[in-house]
């Protein structure tokens, strides 16, 4: 077993070698521009792009014409939200989203607010899911879009997408979902879920970085977007810019593999994740799982080790790549807003670790990680004044702290 061990597959995933094979021809030999309509170089590139488009569409129950290639999910979220807001401005100015969305959604809606749009940020329940009654109540005759993510990037919690899609359809409001973490991992169908727009990313599913897509429904209803990138009119006018042919070919292949191997892979990932969870819960006290365990991606575990600060834990397991919701690990020095939204308290956010198990992890690696985490948590608890106070029976919530 080699270290360091990569267990941060919600941040990014390695490119599957089979995906790389599918990409290689389009760098040197078949390097054409997919928009070159009058020679073989262009035709080959276009053929690769259209094959990939079909592969992406097939994975999510869409048709090829409904896929717009982008540079990734951030761009897709921007295009979906701003594109809809601009296109449907006459119909209304209200958008509903949730407090636990990715920053690519939240920062986009914040910008839209500056341009006069009204945004509702739904809180989530302690399990991380939105409340359907609150969503229903939030819809007004000015609501043009609901944007709720499929699966959360920190806690892996799945939102009630099918119910949201049904409600949006009934209320004739467009429904966008950021499905970056879900597609390729769990079955996703834009038909069954009544999704109108969906953001996708290649590098979260063993494809290359810098490529993603936006699903844009063509029928019932036909969704229109105001393009956010002006230029040569690529992607049916919705996203100009020369296509990243090699990246797109890789994205397509990643989707094909993801779809083909999903059932088996899910079983393996869930087994490894549950093994990790069960060991940590069995060998340590005062461990809390963040978010719903029932409605969760099979490869995610987000767990707080009370009385241990996250960054110090990462420092102790420095041969393992995971991430923490601790303030000390964020650029803003604020603890994770996702964990705060669950209402668990900032102290548990500071103590949280996100594990993301992936296609290439082995059982040996997971066993090793469990052992190392237990060892370091115990060591840091020996060092923790809070754990000592807890053991003495002191109620930490009643202590008057000298906040600084």
């Amino acid at each position, binding site marked *: 077993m080699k270290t360091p061990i990569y267990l941060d597959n919600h941040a990014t995933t390695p490119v599957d070698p089979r995906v790389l094979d599918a990409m290689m021809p389009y760098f040197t030999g078949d390097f054409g521009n997919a928009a070159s309509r009058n020679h073989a170089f262009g035709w080959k590139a276009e053929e690769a792009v259209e094959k990939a488009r079909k592969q992406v569409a097939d994975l999510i129950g869409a048709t090829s014409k409904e896929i717009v290639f982008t540079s990734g999910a951030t761009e897709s979220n921007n295009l979906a939200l701003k594109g809809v807001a601009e296109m449907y401005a006459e119909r209304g100015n209200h958008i509903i989203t949730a407090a636990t969305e990715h920053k690519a959604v939240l920062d986009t809606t914040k910008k839209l607010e500056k341009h006069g749009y009204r945004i509702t940020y739904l809180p989530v329940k302690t399990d991380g899911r939105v409340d359907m009654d609150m969503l229903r109540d939030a819809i007004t005759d000015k609501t043009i879009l609901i944007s709720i993510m499929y699966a959360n990037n920190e806690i892996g919690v799945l939102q009630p997408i099918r119910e949201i899609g049904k409600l949006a359809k009934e209320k004739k409001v467009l429904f966008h979902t950021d499905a970056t973490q879900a597609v390729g991992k769990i079955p996703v169908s834009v038909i069954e879920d009544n999704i109108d727009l969906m953001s996708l990313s290649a590098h979260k599913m063993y494809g290359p970085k810098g490529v993603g897509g936006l699903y844009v429904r063509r029928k019932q209803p036909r969704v229109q977007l105001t393009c956010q990138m002006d230029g040569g009119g690529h992607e049916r006018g919705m996203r100009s810019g020369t296509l990243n042919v090699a990246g797109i070919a890789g994205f397509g292949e990643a989707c094909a593999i993801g779809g083909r191997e999903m059932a088996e892979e899910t079983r393996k990932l869930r087994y490894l994740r549950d093994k990790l969870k069960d060991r940590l819960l069995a060998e340590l006290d005062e461990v809390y799982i963040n978010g719903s365990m029932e409605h969760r991606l099979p490869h995610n575990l987000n767990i707080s080790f009370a009385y241990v600060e996250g960054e110090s834990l990462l420092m102790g397991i420095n041969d393992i790549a995971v991430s923490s919701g601790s303030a000390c690990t964020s650029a803003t020095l604020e603890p994770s807003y996702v964990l705060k939204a669950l209402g668990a308290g900032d102290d548990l956010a500071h103590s949280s670790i996100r594990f993301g198990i992936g296609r290439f992890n082995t059982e040996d690696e997971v066993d090793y990680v469990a052992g190392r985490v237990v060892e370091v948590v115990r060591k840091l608890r020996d060092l923790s004044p*809070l754990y000592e106070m807890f053991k003495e029976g002191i109620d930490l919530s009643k202590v008057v702290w000298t906040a*600084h």
Partner: protein
Amino acid sequence: MAYSDKVLDHYNHPRNVGSMDKNAPEVGTGIVGAPECGDVMKLQIKVNEETGLIEDAKFKTFGCGSAIASSSLATEWVKGKTVDEALEIRNTDIVNELSLPPVKIHCSVLAEDAIKAAIGDYKKKQVSRTSEPVAQEA
């Protein structure tokens, strides 16, 4: 983030970890920080009544590696000093010794505060001992 060798050394081999009897008259205890801020330091000193020197110091810290290192270093530095000498320790000294980056300066501030709080607690005990023969629980 890359940690300095000295931070890593204190993190991997923290000095003077532990607790002393906080009710003992010769022990001063300082607890600073808050769990929701992500760091809490407990620093204790034990003063030799005859020499007036801090003969032992212990700490426990909930916080990042730099917070652990700052408090570990603080316990090393206060040992062998008089209470007044220990009050001279500045957070900037800790920053320099551990090569802390700007985002970690608050860890050193917290360590300085912990020293001051421990000494404050010790002094309070001394005053109550001299003014009232029977020490009262705070």
